[in-house]
């Protein structure tokens, strides 16, 4: 497989500007002749749909939700980064770029990250113009807060529901185009396969979740903006519906899957309780602006938190990382929490928790200020745990939250399959081995509003407008395969629920391929997964039929894909015999227990190519070349 990243030449700082001047354009009269299919309506998908429709392209949008506004971007709490330097605290495009690249442990593509930092400026302006109610100062100007991995205050926010407001902005822009008849919107429409013909992505096969009808849609290009795969772990902070199916199906049709082992475990989630939980709840990273993380110094200390005096507390992030303190990046803060709990100093049920304490902040600023900043998060915590965080410190523990890996894309955000573009969390490009807080919203909107609008032209301008007939052989063949798979799942009629098999897979992955990984454990996981897959295909119970709303069937189909994808994830983790960012191989750590990269051997993107059933996928490498930055040891001390 040839992996040409198509990064434009010239100095880093002017690549995107030059690209925009050089890229081929599609004339206004011709744009409407092209049809673009967009799957997913989160920040990236909704922004892309609105923008491309405004430009005049024919756009069809698909979401498995009942409404585009339900996409999981809606749940992002903390904020969105932009290098505006409104705070006059030394921020710049270069600094945001460097923080993001360093935050990703030098495992992302330099040119993509620089473009992201540049475009961040436009996003805030766009959202303000749409009426997104960003927090303001008394003088009426935009307010900022700080996030992990940065020493400047560059995060814009709407209370604790920034993702909601940004998504509603994009959703409203999308809805305007739907109302004007420029976008055909398909809800309850789940993409179950990609149609590839003549080695190009030409359409998708979709199941109408209300009627079970399977049909093909074809277009000049397909955009996947279908999010990440944290739910492979069963318990994660992702919404229940988030899944890997769209990207994994594309992988099986020839799109390369890049760095699947780069998964982000977020340090501040409400700890697991009971066996019945289906998902975990995140407590925004923004809380670490004012909350101090600690555990008792002694493992035998079982006193309630208010009876542990200061000298008996270990504010371990402040101790270990004095210059970033409680705002150490996520991978580092998560590992530190695991470390103190492994030492037996964890708090709460099962000893898997650490305190996030606001007493000092409330004493300093007053309870009212804390309430104004984080009120809804405190309420959410109170509802879930029954404990009042204004009185008792929160208890938190890391949980799967985001996936940096995704389908491989070039500088145009096009995969190795011509005509298939991938945006947002679904692609791999910008966050390397670890994403910084408030950068997912930035990337989703950058890709959707400001990048794809240019880069899709690079493909369409070389292509005559015209698409496959919906009854072409390739469409019928793919539809047939989708139908067969559904009938097969329905015909098993076994004894186990898809949930119980998924739960078992999740436990296996969390233990063997979670916050810390080693060769032995990964090999065990690689043995265990095929057995679980076997169990699924022989013993799963999916009641009902395929002709109406059948949530058990939808879910079982997604679990079937996780059971294959999990193997790819572990294989990638085993092959990457170094530690970097969220990928922590226990064999490779510094004396102080930090991740030790091996730039000589592993400074590349792993792009996995499907080789067929029961065959090991092929590893393709895109070398990472740094033009302006010299990868260094990533220190937050």
């Amino acid at each position, binding site marked *: 497989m040839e992996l040409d990243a198509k990064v434009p030449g010239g100095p880093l700082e002017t690549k995107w500007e030059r690209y925009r001047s050089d890229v081929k354009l599609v004339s206004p009269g011709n744009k409407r002749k092209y049809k673009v299919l967009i799957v997913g309506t989160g920040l990236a998908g909704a*922004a892309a749909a*609105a923008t491309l429709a*405004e430009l005049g392209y024919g756009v069809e949008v698909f979401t498995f*939700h*009942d*409404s585009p*506004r*339900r996409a*999981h971007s*809606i*749940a992002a709490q903390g904020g969105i980064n932009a290098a*505006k330097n409104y705070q006059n605290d030394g921020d710049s495009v270069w600094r945001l770029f460097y923080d993001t690249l360093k935050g990703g442990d030098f495992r992302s593509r330099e040119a993509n990250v620089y473009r992201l930092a540049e475009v961040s400026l436009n996003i*805030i*302006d*766009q959202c*303000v*113009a*749409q*009426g997104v*109610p*960003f927090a*303001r100062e*008394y003088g*009426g*100007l*935009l307010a900022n807060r700080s996030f992990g991995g940065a020493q400047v205050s560059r995060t814009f926010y*709407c209370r604790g*529901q920034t993702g*909601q*407001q940004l998504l*509603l902005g994009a*959703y*409203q822009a999308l*809805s*305007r185009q*739907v*109302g*004007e*008849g420029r976008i055909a*919107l398909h809800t309850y429409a789940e993409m179950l396969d990609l149609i590839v013909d003549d080695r190009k992505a030409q359409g998708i096969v979709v199941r109408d979740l209300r009627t079970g009808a399977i049909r093909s849609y074809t277009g000049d290009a397909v955009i996947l903006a279908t999010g990440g795969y944290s739910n492979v772990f069963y318990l994660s902070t992702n*919404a*229940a519906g988030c899944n890997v199916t769209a990207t994994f199906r594309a992988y099986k049709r020839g799109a390369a899957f890049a760095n699947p082992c780069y998964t982000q475990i977020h340090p501040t989630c409400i700890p697991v*309780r*009971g066996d*019945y939980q289906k998902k975990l*709840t995140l407590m925004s990273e923004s809380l670490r602006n004012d909350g101090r993380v600690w555990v008792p110094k002694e493992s035998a200390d079982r006193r309630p938190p208010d009876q542990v005096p200061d000298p008996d507390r270990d504010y371990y992030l402040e101790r270990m990382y004095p210059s970033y303190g409680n705002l150490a990046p996520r991978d580092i803060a998560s590992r530190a929490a695991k470390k103190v709990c492994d030492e037996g100093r964890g708090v709460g049920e099962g000893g898997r928790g650490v305190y996030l304490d606001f007493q000092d902040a409330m004493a300093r600023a007053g309870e009212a200020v804390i309430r104004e900043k984080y009120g809804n998060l405190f309420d959410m915590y109170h*509802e*879930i745990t*029954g404990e009042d965080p204004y009185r008792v410190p929160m208890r938190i523990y890391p949980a799967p939250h985001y996936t940096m890996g995704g389908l491989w894309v070039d500088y145009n955000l096009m995969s190795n399959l011509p005509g298939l573009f991938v945006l947002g969390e679904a692609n791999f490009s910008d966050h390397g081995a670890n994403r910084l807080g408030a950068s997912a919203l930035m990337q989703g909107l950058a890709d959707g*509003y400001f990048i794809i609008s240019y880069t899709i032209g690079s493909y369409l301008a070389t292509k005559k407008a015209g698409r496959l007939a919906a009854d072409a052989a390739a469409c019928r063949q793919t539809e047939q395969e989708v139908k067969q798979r559904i009938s097969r799942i329905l015909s098993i*009629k076994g*004894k*186990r*629920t898809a*949930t119980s098999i998924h739960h078992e897979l999740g436990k296996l992955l969390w233990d063997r391929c979670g916050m810390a990984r080693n060769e032995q454990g990964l090999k065990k996981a690689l043995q265990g997964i095929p057995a679980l897959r076997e169990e699924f295909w022989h013993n799963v119970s*999916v*009641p009902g039929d395929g002709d109406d*709303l*059948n949530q*058990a069937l939808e879910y079982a189909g997604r679990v079937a894909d996780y059971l294959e994808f999990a193997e790819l994830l572990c294989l990638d983790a085993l092959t990457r015999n170094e530690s970097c960012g969220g990928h922590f191989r226990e064999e490779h750590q510094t004396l102080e227990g930090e991740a030790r990269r091996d730039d000589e051997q592993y400074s590349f993107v792993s792009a996995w190519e499907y080789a067929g059933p029961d065959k090991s996928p092929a590893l393709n490498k895109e070398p990472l070349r740094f033009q302006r930055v010299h990868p260094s040891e990533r220190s937050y001390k």
Partner: protein
Amino acid sequence: MRVTLHVWRQKNARSEGKLVTYQVPQVDPDMSFLEMLDVLNEELVGKGEEPIAFDYDCREGICGTCSLVINGRPHGPEGGAATCQVYMRNFHDGDEIYIEPWRARAFPLIKDLVVDRSAFDRVIQAGGFVSVNTGGTPDGNTLPIAKTTQEKAMDAAACIGCGACVAACPNASAMLFVAAKVSHLGLLPQGQPERARRARKMVAQMDAEGFGNCSNYFECEAACPKEISVEFIAWMNRDYLKARLTEPDTVTPGMGAKVGPSPVAGHDATAKKHPVA
């Protein structure tokens, strides 16, 4: 603890529905209401029976997907919470719990407890936006907005589009939902150029979808998981009235958006109410 559930089961919009009784013998008070239903569904699927269809996604009260009328109250007994944020510690051992779908003419039932709320999307498509294209927007700080104005707009913008307001209203009115968007955008300077047009178009579409009118029961506010104030309805009514007086009468319902399943109802004081069936 142990609870008895009476759950609305209906195969699809064409078939008859009925309440079916289920026992859930082992309920942990720290379980969420939906986790309790998950446990029941696991048992049903294990037995090869069809699980109860209900909507959910984020399970943290922000996506607006979950619904359920629990013991007659949309989103259940806790104020200011979506169904996914309701915990079993609010119930008692031996409780009988009735679970029904949102019921409104504009929200046709799909299966069991799942209803189609696309009418809300069509109301937004009719005018719930600021008409700016991507690109060419001025620097965010060129437009100072008073903190109090922004906070008020944010109060309205917090709507999650779940439809509890409609389910709670004896008229199945969507006034709180529509008012929240009309106010969010109408309060901000960015929303001024289209303020009158927006109010008229959204209200026209709301009527076309078959939602009822408001007659000040204020059940919507009580049921709203985001505690959005009925003040915004008054705000919208003023905007709408002003728009009727100052704007030429060119707005027709729909304007390109598909009209929902229900006949058109007028939006004035004499309009017929739409009581819940």
